[in-house]
């Protein structure tokens, strides 16, 4: 039975050798997004949310930030990107149709140098 023969210790050693670099692999992008959103307007047709955010980075630079609002898991109903300065407080308003539904907001950022980051959680937008 080839699966269960000798030399299991070798496997253990090899596994650990493989595991260690993977376990310590960089999990976070070089940029991070802090964000809070609140509803500022609602009528029968639309909801407007105001989101205060800050792209946290070790370097002060210009970066693209992207806001994506989805429904039905992956269907995007809002997707906009624009440039902002890192490490500065910013604000952005999002308008989406009122469906008495909980949309999901995700956000990520990237720049031309190849750096990227993302908000590590999604925000529920009830509208």
């Amino acid at each position, binding site marked *: 039975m080839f699966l269960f023969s000798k030399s299991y210790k*070798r496997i253990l050693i090899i596994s650990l050798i493989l595991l260690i670099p993977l376990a310590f692999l960089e999990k976070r992008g070089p940029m991070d997004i802090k964000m809070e959103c609140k509803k500022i307007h609602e009528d029968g047709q639309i909801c407007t949310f105001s989101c205060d955010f800050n792209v946290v980075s070790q370097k002060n630079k210009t970066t*693209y930030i992207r806001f*994506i609002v989805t429904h039905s*898991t*992956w269907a*995007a109903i809002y*997707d906009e990107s624009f440039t902002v300065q890192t490490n500065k407080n910013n604000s952005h308003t999002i308008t989406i149709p009122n469906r008495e539904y909980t949309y999901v907001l995700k956000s990520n950022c990237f720049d031309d140098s190849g750096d990227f980051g993302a908000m590590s959680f999604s925000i529920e937008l009830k509208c």
Partner: protein
Amino acid sequence: MYEIIIQMIGFPIVFFIPGFLIVKKDNILERISLSVVISILISIALIQYLNFIGFPINNFFLLAYIPIIILLVFLERKNITIKNLLRKKEVKYILIILLLSILLKILFFSRSNWLPLGSDIVRWGTVSHSWFLNAEITKDLMPFFPSGNFFIYTPTTLFMVLITETLFFNPASGAIIISILMSSMSVLSFYLFCREFLNQKKAVYACFYYTILFDSSLIYLANRFMLSFSAGFFPMFLSMFYISKGFNEKKIDKMIIPSLILLVTTHLFHIFPVILFLISVFILKHDKKILKKLIILGIISLLISIIIFLPYFLIFMENIGHTSLPFISAEWYNYEIISENFNKNIFTLLLYNIFVNGMEPFFVFSYLIGFMITLFVFNRFKNKKKVVSLFFIICFISTTFYISNPLFSRFSTFPKIVYPISLSLLFNDVGSATFWTVMAIITPRSPIWYSLFDFNDTYLDVTTIEEIHAYEFIKNNVPPDSIFLIDGGGEGIFEGHSGSHGDRIFILTSRRIFYYSGIMDLEEYQKRVRIYRDVSINPNNQTAIQALKQHNITHIFIGPTDIGLDKDKFLESNNYEKLWQEGNVFVFKII
């Protein structure tokens, strides 16, 4: 009628007969498995190279097999003694299990109204159908799909869908046929693998338990229809069979090459844990001669796979690096960081490997049963400490991949291969098999349970009868050059999903959809999302209507699960005419 005849004759010709004429094996089960693998590879090479030298892709593709089959029959000198081979008891049992496996999948698909679940089929089907309508393999899917740039790493399943299209199947039906073929063959190859280290009786029972309780291929089909991943289990088990056979017989069979090629090209994303597992096996046996030969055969397999897929890679070579564009990297990272697996620690992930289905983390009860039985039978192995160590080491290796990339979480399936084997060591009589069949029926999320009772409805992906009727209406009544606005398109470049199942319109009716997944141009993508949002907020907004007209959008499709497009607003509007309605499914025309 003519089309059905072509399908009945064509399917075995394309996916079985050429291989069957080439392969000469005494073991009929091995011969069947290899025949399918080799036929798939021949068909994929044939369609690519014929297109490469200028032949269009169309329904005459089957004619290309005439000279091949004549040649192979001419070269075939050995009489095929299938009758005698089938008389073997072992073969009878396995063929019965194979039929059971096929039946479960037929039941499963019949309950989903003969349409695959999930959005993967839309991705494969859209590319395949655009190629078919364009009559060539091309990276420019215009005018059928707004994408001039894309690249898919797992071309085998894509080409298999395309080949079924040449046999008059639509991409969705083709994908179902391929799924039934590949997942059923995975059961057969699992038996071959087990037979290498279990006696006949125990191997038959292991195969049976795999079919009813642990068939990973079907479990993945039932969850978002992961076609390519599901198809990969067949070549994976077959490769493992040849490797174990090689170690047992101290001689590696060259027939491992076709199964390795198929494994690489259906499983390319996911090959790494398999490789690690194989390395583990090599280290266990540390037979340098066999190891050396395996490495050589592995390299040969890679080279042959490059030759087979050369036309494809020549077309798409410049797009290979597109996945590392900054905004796509950020998108992937966003997807990963929010996914459940990403923030879990290594010990939780280890538990995932034991009990939980990977990609969409949910608890599978049969895995709990399997693990408990495995713990119990550890005592029955000769070196129980080593067995326990090995099992957890494999889980551990698999866990490491979650950490590096949550997409690898689907590999949590890999350690679970041991569960049906454990069951067969303990329960190998008819009474036990009956008991476990009843257990499989009442065990949520077992393959038999999925086939009979339920789906993973997280994505509301079962296409309704009303929607199918709407597709029929569109096919018969809507002009071919029409373009449909549907409810949503995709979260980003890679993730395509519509809440409405309107995304199936193109693959089933050839009418185009205003879709925005798979577009590598962020600006164009966001422009499309903006139009969809504006129409959702107010369908009477003249700027939005003008934008629809500028994009030649002529119709609106609204389904029962739609969120953005509100049927009431369209019904009230004078800018849209209701063409069709059944239940909550609507087709509107823009006036």
